């Protein structure tokens, strides 16, 4: 079997070098075309009529006036009379027309009558959700009652983190075109290989007849895997519109109402410890919502899973609001927030530096040594030991500074991925796989792996992704893309190179396994005198190209990729105690992630994650109105996000070491977003001397906490 192992760290020429995104210039100049940019002649525009009520039954629907509007080509009823609608924004009907304006006007001419039914849209106060809370069974480990009795110190607190949105800049949607009995499908997706099959299922249609293409996507964060109802509608509308292609993208409000959100999490937590900080007991009563399906329990206690005595209770609360979708590290940010807030409160009560508390209890985690080293590294970058002060002891001025800490863990690994490498007699190299680049740098790292294996510069590789005629590769979720595509690419390129070696070995008077590809040449190992240029070597192929596959074997990744990482995050904030405004001074992320193919895009992933977390810590929250059942801030004005000046200084430290490198490639998309809110919340508590129990840490909540009121 060929040797697929990654080249040893010191001999890598391309991998491991900070490399700019290959598609950067396209994106920066606007040349990159997203599916929502498509605008071919004859294109029709579709719009969804959505339900204005949080809970209602459709009693009648009359589309006749809309159908008569000039320019309207098709009207489809999605929720016919009798349908019970469970959240605002639910799709009621769809209209296709020759312009977006006409489609919008037509929507307003559809007459729908509703019987409005009672709703529950808020879950922050468990005593006010009526029968909407469903208790999950109690989980007990050890003897928590006895452990709390024997503990030297116990702390109790309540904490909460609201539902937030994905806020993809490109909303969900697609263009669908029928070509005889074939469909050309141009979605905005994280899943180019799989989404066609999903659409086919809903249409009871042969998936082989769906051709899916997408080169760029404007954000997904876990919300863009399925074909969705609007995708199915968009596929039906052209048939009714004389075969013309149809474009349907959600508007911002509908996007925020129905295209996914992250579940909330609230909890009362009690922690018991010995005087030296060793944690002995945990008790939590948590609840969460993710829409009508309720919300599962975040994995608490997070990371410190080996606390010997535990009692966990959880209720899932069903609310009349759009359903959850995976959101970057599903349920981990919530778990990190609940756990690390409670531990910071414990440290404060013990008058202990939380770095010491986390270090002391690292034995309760699955990777004690990794976390200990990271705590040390983070503390060094933050100058923590010199600058940290006990909670609330931050001087007499109105602006208080504080520091906080949190922790993360994630799986990663490599998803299913197949790759083809073609080497042509003229020297051209094609690498082909139906993956997608979410903006994370996937294009760049695939090209780097191919260039590394083939001894070529990046520019010599032609990469094709984002087209379902190419070998299938998994959806980009769970931080599994980089592991999957790098492994399949490595194998395909090693296999193709093996074929090339076999073709040129005779003319170099050597055996194929004595050859190597370096610096654009094929040569006898270590002997550049016996070599051919890449071009000359490829000419030996005669008329036949090489075309070789590589498959990531998920059961046996052969050391190319693996899973399981940890990281820590530290925040330094200033809080104006007169206004309650929190500013981020500095944010430090120390992250372990195996073999790093491109330190630049890896670092950039962590910057992005930190920014996303800062938004969640300071600004983001879905605001539901009890009286009307409406999501009041389904926009980007009062659903607030940070701007550049709100972010502060972010320092990323990647644990690049031979030891981590040996583990192969591990994904990085998710872990660095996990502990951001928790670390900022802890920094705020450290600064102002009291816990602000609920995120985001807005002026009203900070001032309420300072005044001792519940926020």
């Amino acid at each position, binding site marked *: 079997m060929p040797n697929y192992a990654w080249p040893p760290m010191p001999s890598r020429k391309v991998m491991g070098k900070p490399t700019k995104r290959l598609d950067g210039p396209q994106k920066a100049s606007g040349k990159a075309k997203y599916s929502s940019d498509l605008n071919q002649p004859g294109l029709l525009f579709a719009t969804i009529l959505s339900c*204005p009520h949080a809970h209602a039954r459709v009693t009648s629907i009359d589309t006749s006036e809309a159908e008569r509007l000039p320019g309207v080509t098709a009207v489809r009823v999605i929720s016919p009379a009798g349908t019970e609608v469970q959240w605002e924004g639910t799709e009621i009907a769809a209209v296709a027309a020759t312009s977006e304006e006409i489609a919008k006007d037509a929507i307003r001419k559809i007459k729908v009558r509703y019987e409005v039914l009672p709703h529950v849209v808020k879950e922050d106060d468990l005593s006010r959700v009526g029968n909407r809370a469903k208790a999950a069974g109690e989980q007990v480990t050890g003897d928590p009652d006895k452990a709390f009795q024997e503990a030297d110190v116990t702390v109790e607190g309540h904490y909460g983190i609201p539902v937030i949105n994905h806020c993809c800049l490109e909303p969900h949607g697609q263009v669908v075109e029928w070509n005889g009995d074939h469909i050309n499908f141009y979605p905005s997706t994280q899943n180019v290989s799989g989404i066609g099959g999903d659409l086919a299922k809903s249409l009871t249609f042969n998936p082989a007849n769906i051709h899916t293409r997408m080169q760029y996507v404007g954000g997904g964060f876990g919300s863009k895997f399925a074909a969705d109802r609007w995708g199915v509608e968009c596929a039906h509308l052209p048939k009714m519109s004389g075969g013309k292609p149809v474009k349907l993208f959600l508007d911002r409000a509908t996007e925020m109402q129905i295209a996914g959100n992250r579940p909330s999490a609230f909890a009362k937590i009690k922690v018991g410890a010995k005087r030296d900080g060793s944690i002995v007991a945990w008790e939590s009563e948590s609840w969460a919502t993710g829409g009508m399906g309720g919300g599962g329990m975040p994995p608490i206690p997070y990371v410190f899973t080996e606390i010997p005595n535990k009692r966990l209770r959880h209720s899932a609360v069903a609310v009349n609001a759009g359903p959850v979708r995976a959101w970057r590290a599903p349920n981990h940010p919530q778990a990190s927030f609940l756990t690390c807030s409670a531990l910071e409160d414990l440290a404060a009560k013990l008058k202990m530096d939380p770095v010491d508390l986390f270090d002391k209890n690292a034995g309760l985690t699955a990777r004690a040594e990794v976390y200990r080293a990271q705590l040390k590294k983070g503390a060094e970058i933050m100058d923590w030991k010199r600058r940290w002060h006990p909670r609330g002891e931050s001087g007499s001025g109105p602006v208080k500074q504080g520091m906080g800490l949190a922790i993360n863990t994630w799986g990663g690994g490599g998803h299913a991925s197949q790759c083809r490498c073609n080497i042509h007699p003229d020297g051209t190299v094609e690498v082909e796989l139906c993956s997608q680049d979410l903006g994370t740098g996937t294009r760049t790292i695939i090209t780097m792996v191919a260039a590394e294996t083939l001894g070529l510069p990046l520019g010599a590789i032609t990469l094709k992704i984002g087209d379902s005629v190419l070998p299938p590769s998994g959806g980009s979720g769970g931080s599994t893309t980089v592991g999957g595509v790098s492994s399949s690419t490595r194998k395909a390129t090693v296999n193709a190179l093996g074929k090339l070696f076999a073709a040129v070995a005779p003319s170099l008077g050597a055996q194929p396994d004595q050859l190597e590809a370096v610096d654009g040449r094929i040569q006898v190992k270590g002997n550049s005198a016996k070599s051919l240029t890449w071009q000359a070597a490829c000419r030996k192929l005669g008329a036949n190209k090489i075309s070789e596959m590589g498959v990531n074997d998920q059961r046996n990744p052969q050391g190319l990729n693996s899973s399981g990482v940890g990281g820590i995050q530290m925040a330094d904030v200033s809080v104006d105690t007169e206004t309650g405004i929190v500013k981020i001074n500095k944010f430090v992320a120390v992250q372990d992630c195996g073999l790093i193919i491109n330190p630049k895009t890896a670092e950039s992933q962590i910057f992005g994650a930190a920014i996303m977390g800062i938004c969640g810590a*300071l600004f983001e929250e879905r605001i539901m*109105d009890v009286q009307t059942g409406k999501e009041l801030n389904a926009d980007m004005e009062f659903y*607030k*996000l940070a*701007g550049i000046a*709100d972010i502060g200084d972010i320092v990323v430290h990647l644990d690049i070491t031979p030891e981590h490198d040996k583990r192969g490639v591990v994904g990085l998309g998710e872990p660095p977003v996990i502990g951001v809110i928790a670390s900022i919340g802890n920094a705020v508590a450290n600064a102002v001397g009291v816990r602000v129990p609920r995120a985001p840490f807005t*002026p009203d909540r900070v001032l309420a906490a300072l005044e001792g009121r519940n926020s």
Partner: protein
Amino acid sequence: MQAFEYANPATIQEAVALLGSRWGEADVLAGGTDQISLMKEYLHTPQRVVNIKNIKELGGIHRAGGNLRIGATVTLDELMENAEVRRAFPSLHQAAEGVSSPQIRNMGTVGGDLCQRPRCWYYRNGCGLLAMKDGRSLVPDGENKYHAIFGNSGPAYFVSASSLGPALVALGAKVKLVSASGSREVAVEKFFVTPQNEQSREIALLPNELLTEILVPLAPTHNATYEVRQKEALDWPLAAASVALKMKGSTVASARVVLGHVAPTPWPAAQADQALAGKAITAETAEEAAKAAVAGATPLSQNGYKVQLARVAVKRALLQAARGRA
């Protein structure tokens, strides 16, 4: 957006002839930063849209008599960068700067800033200006953390969106309103009104009138605006204060303290004005005036924190004005 007739007049006279006698007949389009959103959300569905950006007479900033005359279509950016404004009216400069996106400052005009509609999320979600349901406003029992803490005995609970409003009230400015049948000058303080029913507006402008210019008296004052903003990036102030102080030596001869983003109109704080008269501005007198300014606040269920923010805004605006120059 509902289809409309588009008019592109070149003079004030032509423009006012195109306006209607009732709201809904014709809407003025200046920078469009609010107007276009209102139309896209079907909150405004005018039959005619009258673009005023091609009317030369509506532009420019210059001295006129004892006033600085600011044309209605002067952009927020032009206002902010104007040397005379920077020198004489730092409070206006600071208020315009607070509209923290260069894009909006480049497009948005001073006339549009004064005439923009409230950002109350019930209004913007189609519940009506006063958010009435079954004869009661949704706001007092609803999500009111950004709503009014003054002037909120009903039926209006929204806050006036204009950041220039409070600064102009403090400076004693007037606006000129022109219709086909004539023109009138209205003190900015009187220009903002609290609507009493769903049909009325939050400004005194009539449907057939165009706001053509703002006149700011050039009397020397120490003036400043301080806005409490959670974000550096594009966002609305949570509370703000504009102050203008006529000084006699080192003491205040007369003061105008006006709160912003806390009431359906800019909110003059006469008690603060009185507290300052005859005093030098120090941390203590500023704090006292700030307390006086918010003494009569009537916060709703979720916006008590805005009382504190308004107080801080007054204190910081006064200290800033005292540090600055007339």
